[in-house]
């Protein structure tokens, strides 16, 4: 009883009209921000499910008009897109796996005090956060390794990331007690055993963070492929998307018999929306389920900073 009265009293004291106004203002700002971010995404989704004429005529505002999936039919029949999808998937899986292995190995070793040369390796990593060889030397390296137009150029160069390794090191250091390693050591555990049976099982969530960031990075990047690949069969999805969406290299006529210019233009327009949806869908669907790992990654990162 008393607590309720107290609570009521407190609320009355705390909320002056100025504070109420302020609450209203922040809520308004947040609502506007959310709407500004969400609306373009919703529009793309709705437009991709509408008919070409509805989109061209400006009749689509929020929800699909004249519901149709012709655009998606065309997208999934497009060989380039399908190949791009498969390639991106392969690069993402292999690249992420390698990144995770490298990150776990180095992150673990960097936390071990008996690793002689630890500070040297650590310094070597930090330097790469500020300096890099840049475009031309990297390109010449890949060329001299004969890795141009191979899957290796997509997987190997980005595998060592100082940021991921430092993140993992901080995580292991702060969340796995040193005593655990000591007792494992006393029980006759080798270094490999400590990695496999102590560090690895307890680093699940940081590996999830690293894996997700790395996967999103690889899936969405086009620069490396743009520079290192010229063989169309190896193109990842983003390069295919660039050709279709920005350079307008998609033959609409091949998909449907569209004679007049207006319809053709409408269809090409619609296809673009569908392509955007199809290419972004995997990550956006995955996102709500893995959101907490992303937030966690930023948290660990900011602890260190």
């Amino acid at each position, binding site marked *: 009883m008393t607590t309720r009265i107290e609570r009521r009293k407190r609320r009355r004291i705390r909320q*002056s009209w*100025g504070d109420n106004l*302020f*609450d209203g203002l*922040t*809520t308004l*700002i*947040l609502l506007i921000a*959310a709407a*500004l*971010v969400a609306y*373009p*995404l919703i529009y*793309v989704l709705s437009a991709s499910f509408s008919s070409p004429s509805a989109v*061209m005529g*400006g009749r689509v505002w929020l929800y699909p008009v004249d519901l149709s999936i012709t655009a998606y039919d065309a997208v999934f029949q497009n060989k380039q897109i399908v190949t791009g999808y498969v390639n991106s998937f392969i690069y993402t899986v292999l690249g992420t796996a390698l990144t995770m292995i*490298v990150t776990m*190995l*180095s992150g673990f*070793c960097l936390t071990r005090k*008996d690793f*002689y*040369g630890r500070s040297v390796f650590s310094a*070597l990593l930090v330097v*790469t956060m*500020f*300096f*890099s*060889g*840049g*475009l*031309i*030397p*990297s*390109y*010449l*390296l890949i060329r001299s390794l004969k890795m141009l137009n191979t899957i290796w150029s997509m997987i190997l160069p980005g*595998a*060592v990331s100082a940021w991921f390794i430092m993140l993992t090191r901080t995580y292991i250091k702060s969340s796995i007690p040193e005593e655990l390693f000591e007792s494992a050591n006393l029980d006759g555990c080798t*270094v490999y055993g400590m*990695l496999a049976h102590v560090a690895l099982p307890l680093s699940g969530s940081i590996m999830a963070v690293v894996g997700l960031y790395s996967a999103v990075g690889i899936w969405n*990047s*086009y*620069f490396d492929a743009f520079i290192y690949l010229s063989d169309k069969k190896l193109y990842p999805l*983003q390069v295919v*998307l*660039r050709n279709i*969406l*920005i350079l307008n290299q998609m033959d609409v006529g091949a998909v449907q018999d569209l004679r007049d210019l207006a319809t053709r233009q*409408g269809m090409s*327009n619609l296809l673009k929306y569908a392509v*955007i949806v199809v*290419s*972004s869908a995997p990550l956006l669907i995955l*996102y709500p389920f893995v959101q907490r790992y*992303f*937030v966690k990654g930023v*948290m660990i990162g*900011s602890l260190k*900073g």
Partner: protein
Amino acid sequence: MVGQAGANRNGMDGLNRASGAPRGINRRTVWQRMRASAPYYLLMLLPLALLLVFKYYPMYGLQLAFKDYKTRLGIVNSPWVGLKHFNQFLTASSAWNVIRNTLLISIYSLLLGFPAPILLAVCLNESPSRRFRKSVQMITYMPYFISTVVLVSMIIQFTDISSGLVNQMVRGMGGSAINFMGERRYFRLIYVLTGIWQGAGYSAVIYLAALSGVNPELYDAATVDGASKFRRILNVDLPSITPTIRILFILNTGSILSVAFEKIYLMQNNINLSISEVISTYIYKMGLQNSNYSYSTAAGLFNSVISFAMVFITNTICRRFSDGGLW
């Protein structure tokens, strides 16, 4: 006992480093320690190899900036030419235009883009409803997952003069359609605003993390002293996240000359090229399209040296006028 032993060992370390210890002991200790660390070296084999080959070898290749690259001779055997390429870069009028473009785009991004996530984070932190806060956070974070290619194609689609959403709105409100991508003057604005659209939610998470660490007693004390919510933000929240803001600001000034290649390259067209050409795209065009390897490497090296200097200068200023910087 244990403490003493530790102190002893530290003492010896110090001696060794000052090379005051007898050599024999020093060498044996190093050798023994390296033998004891053997399993680590085995574990580090793959990471170290990748690091040296893909990060350090290109740095070694930076010598190209001081040489005339001949494919036949390779990087190492090409003849030295000193600062020729730097001179050429800094005396070319096109280069200054490129540097100016880069600076302007970066400064606009910094001025408009830097405060946006802070504002978002403070508002999110103030929101009384947890569920509302989570939903807004999730929505604003979403564009981070959209690739640059998709983002730029959305820009092009939306600003299309006949069928684009933006122009439909403009016409709906009685205006006449604007060719946004076809006019130079909108380029920077579009670049910066879409950058905020994509990045603000993501960057806000860092500030939110810092805000969640604010001691609640400070709020209570401020409330007791009769501070309004606005005052509490000014006098409690903002001072608490100042270190985070400072660090991110220093890091951002470091990237002031390195406008990312991907987005700007995709947004370029013949009309906006005179203001959209930045150092990274210039390096790409000079280097890989015109095969001007040495010149392009010199431009890149100039870029990263200036970037590092910027971080250094900002850091020094921050340390001089407040209580801390990056290092």
